[in-house]
C-alpha cells in the first residue's frame, strides 16, 4: 500500500435509487489528522455517502478505500469510528454497558476493554456517569457517550454523520471543538457531515456536496476567496444556489 495514501479515499463514487441520483461520481479524501467538513443541504447525499462508507449500502460505481480496505471488509470496519445521525445508544443500558457491548462487537474484552473504557470516559468527563442508565443523560452527554464509544477501538477514521442533530448551540460547539482536538492530538482523520455552516469553521477543508455532486473541496479561506464571498455562509449559499456543475468545481 502507498504510504502516502489518505486514510479515507473516495473515487468516482456513484449511487442511484430508482432513477434518482444519490451520488453522481464524487471524489473525496481524508488524511490523518485532517478535519474535513462535508457540508451540504438536506438531500445532498451525505447520508447515502456515509451508508456506503460504513458498508451498509453498496455503491453502483466508483471505489472507496478505508485504511487500505474496502467498505464492509473487517479491516475497514475496524478502521472506522462512527457517530450516526440517529442516536444508537441502548437507552435502557448504563453508559459502561453500552461501551462494553460495542467493545465486544469489535472483539475487545478483559482488561484491555476496561482500560480503554476508562480512558475514553475520562477524556469525555463521564467517569461519574458511567453507571448511569443512558436514558437519564442529557442530549449532549448522550452524544459524548456515542463519541467515546466510537473511539473505544481506536479507529483511524472518525465519521460524524450530522452528529449535532438535536443539540443546543453550546453543546454543538463543544462537540465540534472536542472532535477537532481529537484530530490534532491523535491524528484521527475526521469526516464531519453537516448542513450547519457554523460547524465548518474548524475545518481543514470544506467539501460542499449538493444534489449528489461535489461543488467545492477547499480550505475555508480558499473557499471564500474563490467564491468572492466574505464568509463561509455566504459562499455556501452562493455555490449551492448556483448549483454549479461538476466541471466547474472550484
Amino acid at each position, binding site marked *: 500500500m502507498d504510504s502516502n495514501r489518505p486514510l479515507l479515499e473516495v473515487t468516482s463514487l456513484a449511487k442511484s435509487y430508482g432513477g434518482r441520483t444519490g451520488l453522481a461520481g464524487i471524489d473525496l479524501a481524508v488524511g490523518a489528522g485532517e478535519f474535513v467538513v462535508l457540508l451540504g443541504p438536506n438531500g445532498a447525499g451525505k447520508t447515502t455517502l456515509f451508508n456506503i462508507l460504513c458498508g451498509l449500502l453498496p455503491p453502483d460505481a466508483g471505489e472507496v478505500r478505508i*485504511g487500505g480496505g474496502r467498505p464492509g471488509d473487517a479491516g475497514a470496519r475496524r478502521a472506522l469510528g462512527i457517530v450516526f445521525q*440517529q442516536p444508537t445508544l441502548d437507552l*435502557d443500558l448504563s453508559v459502561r454497558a453500552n461501551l462494553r457491548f460495542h467493545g465486544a*462487537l469489535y472483539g475487545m474484552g478483559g482488561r*484491555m476493554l476496561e482500560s480503554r473504557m476508562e480512558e475514553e470516559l475520562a477524556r469525555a468527563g463521564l467517569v461519574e456517569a458511567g453507571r448511569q442508565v443512558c436514558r437519564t443523560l442529557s442530549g449532549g452527554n448522550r452524544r459524548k457517550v456515542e463519541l467515546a464509544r466510537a473511539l473505544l477501538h481506536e479507529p483511524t477514521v472518525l465519521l460524524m454523520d450530522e452528529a449535532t442533530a438535536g443539540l443546543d448551540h453550546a453543546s454543538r460547539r463543544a462537540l465540534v471543538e472536542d472532535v477537532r482536538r481529537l484530530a490534532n492530538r491523535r491524528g484521527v482523520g475526521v469526516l464531519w457531515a453537516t448542513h450547519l455552516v457554523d460547524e465548518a469553521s474548524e475545518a481543514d477543508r470544506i467539501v460542499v456536496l449538493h444534489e449528489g455532486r461535489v461543488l467545492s473541496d477547499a480550505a475555508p479561506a480558499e473557499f471564500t476567496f474563490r467564491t468572492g464571498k466574505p464568509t463561509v455562509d455566504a459562499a455556501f449559499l452562493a455555490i449551492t444556489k448556483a448549483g454549479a456543475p461538476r466541471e466547474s468545481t472550484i
Partner: protein
Amino acid sequence: MRAQPMTAEAISGRTGTPSGFGAAHAARALGAIVQRDLFRFVHQRGRLVAAVVRPSLWLLVFALGFRNVFGVSIIPPYETYVEYQVYVVPGLLGMVLLFNGMQSSLAMVYDREMGFMRLLLAAPLPRWYLLLSKLVSGTVLSVLQAFGFLAVAAAFGVDIPWMGWLWALPALLLVGMMLGALGLALSVHIRQIENFAGAMNFVIFPMFFISPALYPLWRFEEAGAQIVHVAAQLNPFTYGVQLIRFTLYGQFHTLAAAVVGGCLVAFFALAVAGYRLRSPPAAPRNPQST
C-alpha cells in the same frame, strides 16, 4: 500542537483490537448480544409475565375447561389414554417458542427503527454471524420461557415425566431456532413496528391453530376438513410440536426432526439473503436524513 500526519499504513497496527474474526471475537460478540437481550427481557416485566401467563391461561382455561369435551385416543408417543391437559402441553410449549420467535423479530424491527441495528451492521462481523447471534439469543430466551411454563404445568399437576424435561431440551432448542429464524426472515419485510401486529396475526394464529397443538390431526380429517388437514401437514409448526411431544416421552421423531432442521436452514438462509439485499437498515425517521 498538531500531530504529525499519519498514514493508513503507519496507523494500521495501532488499534488494540484483534485483527481478524476469530473464535474469541465471535464468542465475545455472541455473549454480548445474548447478555443484552437477556437483560432487556428480565427488565421488561410485562413481557416476562406474559411469557408465562399466556400458556398457563391456555392450560388452565382451555385445557381444564375442555378436558371432558376432547377425548384423545391412544396415539404415539402416548402408551395409554392421556388427559387433555397432558396432550396439550407440547403444543403450548410450541406456542411459547412461536410467540417468542416472533417477539424476537419485533426486537429486530425495534432495533432497526431505533437505529441500533446500524451499530450492529457496522461492526467488523459477518452479517450472517450477527443474525446467527440474534437467533441464538432469541432461542435462549425461548427455551428459558418454555421451561418456565413446564414448571407451571408441573405445579398444576400435569403429569410430564421428569426425564422428559432433559430429553426435550435439544428439541426445544431446534424448534426455537426454527421459529426464531422464521421471525428473522419475516422481520426483513416488516419495515415499521406499526405493521408488526398485523403481520404476526397472519403467522402466529394460522400456524398454531392448523397444527396438532390443540388436537391430533386425525380430528381435522374426521371432521371432513381435508384442506385444513393438508395445510397442517404443510405447516412446519406441526413438526415442531410433534418433535417436542415425542422427545418429552423419550422418543425421537425422525421426520419431524428432519423437517424442523430443514426449515431452520431454509428460513435462516432467507433471513441472511433478505438482510443482504435490504441493506441499509431503515432510514431514520428524520427529515434531515438524506
